[in-house]
């Protein structure tokens, strides 16, 4: 029954019903590709001028980026008073966007490092793009605190160094400073990890390019890669070590971001579950963004044989499990607020669900917990249009999660006379639009100039499961 259903719904990954191992370990890459096919298919976009679809997407992204740039220039010239903040709600849109973008980056490190250590072969088709997405998202995130400083040209004051300002040191007790360290470390390690993974592919492009600028650039950055056994051995050792080093970063970055709130004595912010809850939420939102991007890239760049229903289904399962963890954290917060008997905690959570921002709260719950439950159904996990829709829904939900945590915990202060509301100004909205513009512009440039799929890694999973068994090992493929 299960077998026949699988055969009916997976035309791209046929299974041999007679062989149970083939059912449990279906081919990840379809179309009977050879290593030469992989190189040709993945490098194809680099050799041709981009199509009309790419240009229109790039134009829209650049327009958004220009809108954002104008907004940022205006607010820096005028001051942070252009935002809708007030004395009660002193943190709102900018920090929401910061946390949102940092979170987006997490799936890249999860897929590239954690799933590598867990030997999930399906990651090979998506890790390159997910890592690029991480780098771009972290840059987008970093913009917001820098803009919030008001005088971004003094951003270097964030770093602790002996100075002539009397001597004025940064506040080591502040989680905001820990953010500086955590995020800059994250950006550095993610960039190194991405670059190291690119080296064999850069060498491939070098070898197939005609003499010219591309050959010179890829030749320089491929560090003299010659494909010998010794080179591969060293590469694999470095990759493994970097994966081990990057894994704690998946936890540390969003843990420290959560501490921006949890170390404050504000009901709704100060709660011990925040570190793991934020990490799970970050991975959840990151996976949603990877799905959004990969489903578009799959169609636009004709990668149907490389990003198959198995990859999408595996990511859906991960996203579902993360959504359930996030749902459990929402429930735990509510439960403990009631259990503790603390009237302030109880007020904050009831205010979230029933107060003036209840629309935002219920958007969050619906998008992050209720709607993703549909992914329990196998047929929906294999329906690309539906998965694309869900990924957008989760992106929206996770943005609202940060907005709900930040604004609803602040807007009704301890003293009712201090209660206030918050509405973002056009400048703030334009800045958010601009960050999306930056994100998509950079991602489209990445798709245009870099191999979007890790060719060297995908070639490693072309083998049939049976041959794989002899040489390789037992692997846990979530697909």
């Amino acid at each position, binding site marked *: 029954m299960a077998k026949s259903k699988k055969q009916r719904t997976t035309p791209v990954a046929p299974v041999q019903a007679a062989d149970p191992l083939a059912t449990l370990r279906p081919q990840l890459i379809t179309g009977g590709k050879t290593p030469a096919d992989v190189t040709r298919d993945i490098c194809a976009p680099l050799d041709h001028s981009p199509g009309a679809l790419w240009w229109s997407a790039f134009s829209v992204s650049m327009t958004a980026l220009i809108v954002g740039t104008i907004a940022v220039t205006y607010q820096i010239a005028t001051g942070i008073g252009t935002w809708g903040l007030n004395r009660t709600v002193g943190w709102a849109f900018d920090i929401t966007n910061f946390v949102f973008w940092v979170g987006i980056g997490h799936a890249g490190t999860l897929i590239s490092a954690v799933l590598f250590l867990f030997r999930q072969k399906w990651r090979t088709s998506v890790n390159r793009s997910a890592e690029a997405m991480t780098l771009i998202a972290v840059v987008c995130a970093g913009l917001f605190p820098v803009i919030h400083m008001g005088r971004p040209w003094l951003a270097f004051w964030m770093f602790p160094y002996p100075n002539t300002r009397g001597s004025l040191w940064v506040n080591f007790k502040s989680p905001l400073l820990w953010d500086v360290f955590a995020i800059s470390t994250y950006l550095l390690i993610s960039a190194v990890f991405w670059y190291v993974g690119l080296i064999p592919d850069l060498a491939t492009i070098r070898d197939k390019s005609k003499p010219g600028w591309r050959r010179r650039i890829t030749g320089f950055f491929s560090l003299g890669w010659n494909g010998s056994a010794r080179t591969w051995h060293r590469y694999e050792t470095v990759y493994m070590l970097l994966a081990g080093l990057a894994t704690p970063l998946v936890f540390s970055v969003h843990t420290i971001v959560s501490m921006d709130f949890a170390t404050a004595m504000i009901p709704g912010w100060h709660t011990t579950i925040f570190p793991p809850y934020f990490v799970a939420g970050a991975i959840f939102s990151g996976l949603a963004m990877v799905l959004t991007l990969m489903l578009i890239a799959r169609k636009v760049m004709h990668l149907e044989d490389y990003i198959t229903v198995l990859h999408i289904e595996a990511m859906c399962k991960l996203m579902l499990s993360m959504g359930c963890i996030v749902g459990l954290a929402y429930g*735990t917060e509510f439960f403990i607020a*009631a259990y503790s008997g603390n009237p302030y905690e109880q007020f904050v959570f009831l205010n979230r669900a029933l107060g003036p921002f209840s629309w935002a709260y219920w958007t969050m719950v619906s998008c992050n917990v209720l709607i993703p439950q549909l992914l329990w159904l196998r047929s929906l996990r294999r329906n690309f249009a539906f998965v694309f829709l869900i990924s957008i829904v989760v992106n929206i939900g996770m943005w609202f999660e940060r907005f709900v945590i930040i604004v609803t915990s602040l807007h009704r202060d301890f003293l009712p006379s201090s209660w206030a509301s918050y509405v973002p100004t056009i400048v703030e909205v334009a800045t958010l639009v601009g960050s999306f513009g930056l994100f998509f512009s950079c991602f489209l440039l990445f798709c245009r100039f870099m191999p979007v799929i890790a060719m060297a890694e995908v070639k490693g999973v072309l083998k049939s499961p049976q041959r794989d068994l002899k040489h390789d090992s037992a692997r846990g493929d979530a697909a």
Partner: protein
Amino acid sequence: MTPASAPFSTLSRRLALLAIVSAITLAIGAAISPVRTWSNLLIINFYLVTLGLGGALFIALTYVCNASWNVSFRRVPEALAVLLAPVGLGLLAVLALGREHYDWHPHGTGDAGTFWFKEMWCNSTFWFGRAAVYVSLWILLSRALVTVSRRQDNTGTLGLTIANKRLSALFLFVYAVTFSLASCDWLMLLEPLWFSTIWGVYNFAGMVQAVLATMIVLALVLRSRGPLRRIFTDDHLHDLGKLLLGFSCFWMYIWFSQYMLIWYTNIPEEASYFIPRMQGAWGPIMVVNIVLNWIAPFLFLLPRPCKRSESVMMKVAVIVLIGRWVDLYVMVFPTTMGDWPVFGLWELAGGCLLIGTFGWLFFRSFAKAAPVPSADPLLGESLHYHC
């Protein structure tokens, strides 16, 4: 009795004897120092339940991931999962006997109106009823997982693997909700005015760490004495070692998250948990807890050869298992026994009862099925596994 159990009949008898002697000692303890004995019994039973539940969790996680490396020694966590029935009933009995330790009533703090939920939640009947529901659900689902796996020995049907995969997803969902609530009901409620949202995650981390260490010890014993010889390889050991290293770090991460956030804000109703544990005579025990659960496994398990060494792995696993007891000890004893740590005959008897009962029940349940799931379609991958 299958041939797999033969080398263990003497060991089982000795463990049963140890359990009986310890139980008699604790019965005397119950007459002399009832609160202390009950505290010991709570630790033992919670420890045993989390081992059984951890076994089922390990099986479920590997099924949903389609993993194969663990198939060759899957009968070890399966035998752990079977333990849930007797030890779950034991825990319910201990809870029924110690209801007064969870007694909550408004202490005149705050507005009584804000406590309506707690009053309802802490109602004796509801509290015990919930415990019975949690334990029943765990027993039911873990038994189903084991039964399906054992049935596959006769048929080798692929459909049974798929059935267990679905069952595992259901188990994980139920487990996450019920275990979070159960750890609050059975351990956090010992201090009724204290609360921490991370408590369920903290207990999850400790549970996984302990069950990994237990599987390492058991698989090594079963390998040296026959049933898993040439089946449980150094590569399997290596991977269990990596997981233990990872989860030791995860435990420390969760411990630190809870401690740091409470320390940083220093709100009296939250700090009330850590003040007696950090500032009095309990302080050194908290340090020992961290050394056993994180520092020792981290330092020993970082080098690759250590994770493939039988003797190192055995020692580290035992350290972690002792660490798990210490972790539960600092959760329970400062509340029930006061400011001074006590360790004597009753705690030793408790530890012996834990080992004796566990070992006896485990080898009994392990002997009830073939030592290897011989017809599992993924067994071949597992036997050829190289990490």
